[in-house]
């Protein structure tokens, strides 16, 4: 018991040390704050302070830079997407002379570490400290949904670069430059039943939001068009070994695979190794055999079919321009992530041009973004003005070639 008494002084002493540190920390924060507001003044030429104050001073004649915040994943499971998307977005703006609406564009990139909490924090930072006019966000569905209400409250437009889940319709500030994954999977389901002539299907998908979204979409499209889904199996995200699932898959006319990333590689490889490919063909939503995983899968990907809004083998004029722009950076693989970053840049430039550089009204800018109708690598990019989700063509393609020549061969546009 006496220990309790003797301990007290040392506890307080340590508390004291810590609290001194806390004071320093508080001083540090205050210091940082001053630095940052100084920077804001220097860069934008507007008085620091309330956003409204800054906004009011931005007139059409203003030649100060327009700041655009970009939240991507550079670390964590989606860390592979951040750097290439940044490179492409920069290349797209460079092509337009780094300006739009007569004003220079300044991009501010932030890492959300594949974590929705960080995405919200970074969005707050971009809005409160950097006073950005719009935020491009995010790579992960959870992050995109989490940031939605934050930006809506601040009346700052949010532009999603890749397919994102439904759920942002209620925010007038949100616009997604790609169709939802569920949309493309539904189209594929319909196509599989009507054009490919499959009567029965099994669905094997990743047991997280994306997997369920594409599985549900495919099932809906397939059953509505008269097909029958005989079995559905969901495997946890990051499954090391699909053998046990694959050996239990029932016979059907076709199998639908809903996997992405490292899981897609293992699934498509093991689909062949466990002999299921001999029993029935494999089709899936685009990410199953996207350019990012195709070479890693190897010849096991041959003849796998996919329904998606983008493939690097599309022959649209804007896709050619996009692929040309990638030539100086051969390490960047063309995929729907980087093509999405390209299209996002196009949307921003177009919308700001139409606003003649006046981005002071976030809601007006958001409306201008939704009114965009421009060429994108996958064809025409326009938004459903009531939901904010992009309307895009959906293609059916099949993997052909072998080894280093593996590629998508476009069959036709499904819708």
């Amino acid at each position: 018991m006496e220990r309790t008494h003797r301990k007290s002084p040392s506890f307080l002493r340590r508390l004291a040390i810590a609290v001194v540190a806390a004071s320093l920390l508080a001083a540090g924060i205050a210091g940082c704050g001053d630095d940052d507001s100084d920077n804001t003044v220097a860069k934008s030429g507007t008085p620091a302070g309330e956003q409204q104050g800054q906004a009011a001073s931005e007139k059409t004649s203003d030649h100060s830079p327009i700041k655009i915040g970009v939240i991507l994943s550079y670390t964590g499971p989606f860390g592979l997407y951040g750097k290439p998307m940044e490179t492409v977005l920069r290349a797209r703006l460079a092509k337009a002379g780094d300006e739009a609406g007569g004003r220079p564009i300044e991009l501010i990139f932030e890492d959300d570490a594949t974590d929705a909490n960080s995405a919200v924090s970074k969005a707050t930072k971009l809005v409160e400290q950097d006073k950005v006019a719009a935020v491009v966000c995010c790579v992960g569905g959870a992050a995109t949904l989490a940031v939605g209400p934050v930006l809506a409250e601040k009346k700052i437009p949010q532009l999603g670069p890749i397919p994102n889940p439904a759920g942002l319709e209620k925010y007038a500030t949100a616009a997604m430059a790609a169709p939802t994954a569920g949309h493309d999977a539904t189209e594929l389901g319909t196509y599989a039943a009507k054009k490919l002539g499959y009567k029965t299907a099994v669905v094997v998908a990743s047991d997280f939001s994306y997997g369920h979204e594409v599985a549900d979409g495919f099932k809906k499209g397939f059953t509505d068009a008269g097909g029958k889904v005989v079995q559905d199996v969901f495997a946890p995200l990051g499954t090391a070994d699909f053998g046990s699932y694959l050996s239990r898959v029932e016979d059907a006319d076709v199998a639908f695979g809903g996997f992405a990333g490292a899981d897609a590689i293992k699934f498509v490889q093991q689909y062949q190794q466990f002999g299921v490919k001999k029993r029935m063909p494999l089709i899936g939503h685009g990410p199953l055999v996207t350019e990012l995983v195709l070479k890693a899968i190897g010849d096991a990907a041959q003849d796998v079919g996919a329904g998606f809004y983008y493939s690097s083998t599309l022959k649209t004029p804007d896709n050619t321009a996009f692929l040309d722009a990638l030539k100086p950076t051969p390490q960047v693989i063309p995929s729907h992530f980087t093509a999405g970053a390209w299209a996002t840049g196009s949307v921003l430039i177009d919308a700001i041009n139409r606003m003649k550089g006046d981005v002071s009204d976030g809601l007006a800018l958001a409306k201008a973004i939704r009114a965009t109708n421009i060429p994108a690598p996958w064809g025409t990019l326009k938004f459903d003005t009531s939901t904010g989700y992009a309307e895009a063509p959906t293609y059916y393609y099949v993997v052909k070639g072998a080894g280093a020549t593996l590629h998508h061969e476009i069959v036709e546009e499904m819708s």
Partner: protein
Amino acid sequence: MTPAEAVFQLLIGLSFGLLLFLLASGFTLTFGLARFVNLAHGAVFLVAAYVATSVGGPGWRFVLGVGAAAATGLVLSVVVYALAASRWRVIGERTLVQVLLTFGALLVLADYARSHWDGLPRSLVAPSALDGSWAFAGSAFPVYRLFMMGAALVVAALLWWLQERTSFGALVRAGVDDREMLAALGVSTRRLFAAVFALSGVLAGLAAGLGAPVLGAAMGQEFDILVLALVIVVLGGPGSLAGAFAASLAVGVADAYGKAFLPSFAEFTMMGLVIVVLAWRPAGLFGTAET
């Protein structure tokens, strides 16, 4: 479930379990002997797997890939030990400092892998001779899995021989049971520990290389592999190779049956096993009471 199906799932489970043994046996040795919690083990695996996928290739280059992975594992593991050994008097005694040191090393290694290989998931295709399937029980079993099982069994047999039949193994066994005795015998614990860390790294590298056609290399593995290794070490009892072997096979088989017959609960199989075993035998399947 027909008997043939049961045997088929057993094979899948055993092949995965043997791979688990390779990646966890090194961890159990360093933990059992040096009482060192090497959280960097998962990142050593990750970097070795990436090395295997970049050095390896079709045909004989597959062997090159596996060898490079083992060499990578050896070097990284020894570096981690060298870091710890520089202040072993403090770090060797304090688990939480080990946690801090090796978690830091894990972040550094994983960040290196992410930036060097662009975070892309990669794979190593098995040599064409091993790339086929073997028709069995109305399904097909990949030939490579059989090869992997054989290779893992050979490594396990070598480990057993090393531990039971060599003076090195005798020292390790003595050290696991009673570290004070090593000092009393006048053995240089530093050199012995370095050797065990090197062995641990080689085993992780071999697991990464041999497992590359199945597991590939991808970010996130640094944590997944670490959790698997922790599960097996604690289930099997720290320092016990026999325990790690039994625990690996048990986890592998439970995982396979869970996925095949209770797919909705597959995620809970492994952690459920951990809770049941620890609630029943806190020291692990083969552990001694004092741990």
